[in-house]
């Protein structure tokens, strides 16, 4: 028993070869129940039809891309599970695209080319260190700050550091 035998996964990816590879990699760790969709809209329908515990999604797809799909999952009032872990897998690794993915609410970002090691590391991160969720104006999703050092003693550099200091 691997711990994954009851897990339901959803792969949202427009490339059939990548879907096939991702399915095979998930199978190799023990995930058996895997649904597939070839774009974001189909992914949303798959999520509504069947509970999913883990979502792997591509970024660039038509007609609905991975960003819109993620935002919909996180924020739509009829979303079946706004907290579902989402791993975005993309060859578009430019900084602004990764930041867009983060701001849409993805849990992890995995750059193509895929390796089993990297995919399993992202899944392990989700299993081992589940992240708090944040709800605020304009964002709902995993806490975008990865690390918080309570013993930080360096200079205060954020604009809001000064706005939030209690007046003396």
């Amino acid at each position, binding site marked *: 028993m691997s711990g994954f035998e009851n897990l339901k996964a959803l792969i949202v990816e427009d490339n059939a070869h990548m879907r096939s590879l991702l399915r095979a990699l998930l199978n190799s760790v023990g995930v058996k129940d895997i649904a597939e969709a070839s774009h974001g809209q189909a992914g949303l329908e798959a999520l509504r039809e069947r509970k999913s515990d883990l979502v792997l999604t591509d970024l660039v797809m038509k007609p609905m891309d991975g960003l819109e799909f993620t935002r919909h999952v996180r924020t739509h009032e009829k979303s079946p599970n706004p907290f579902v872990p989402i791993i975005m897998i993309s060859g578009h690794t430019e900084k602004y695209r990764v930041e867009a993915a983060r701001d849409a609410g993805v849990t992890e970002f995995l750059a193509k080319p895929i390796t089993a090691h990297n995919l399993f590391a992202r899944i392990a991160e989700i299993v081992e260190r589940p992240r708090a969720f944040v709800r605020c104006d304009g964002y709902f999703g995993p806490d975008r700050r990865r690390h918080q050092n309570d013993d930080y*003693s360096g200079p205060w550099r954020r604009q809001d550091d000064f706005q939030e200091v209690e007046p003396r």
Partner: protein
Amino acid sequence: MVKPRKPARKGVEMIAPDAYPQMMSRPQAARALLALRSHETAARAHLAMEAAIPPMRAAILQYVEDMERAGGDMKKQFEIAHEIRGFAETAGLLTTGRIADTLCRYMDDMERMGKSSDAAIVALHASAIARAARAEEDDVRTGEVVAAELAALVARRLSGAETA
């Protein structure tokens, strides 16, 4: 001096991991981590990756043909280059993937600057991608030289586009 903890920002709700449904229970998570890090899983995953190579290589050759047919349609060529970049390296075509990556980054940067890509540069990359993908063996040494020269050409053109 230790910085005092910042107060929570107004209007921000933090939802701790134990306050929402998790992917799996804690006992399952412990087993899952062992499975993810086991040699048996790594061996099965390796076989899965190996099995994926032949169909992926065939798909890349099809993409190369599509790219050649796309001719001067640079939007279409960008889309195809992106697909090739996505899994050429997984298919063992390192040089092909690297050249496709350079082309994607060039076209992406030009688009962000609101400028048109140079058709000659795109054609040069498309040709190099095709030659690298069709080589019977991935000729890494030659490929690295070609990829490096193309990357240097793109860097010069991007630098020129930024200052223009």
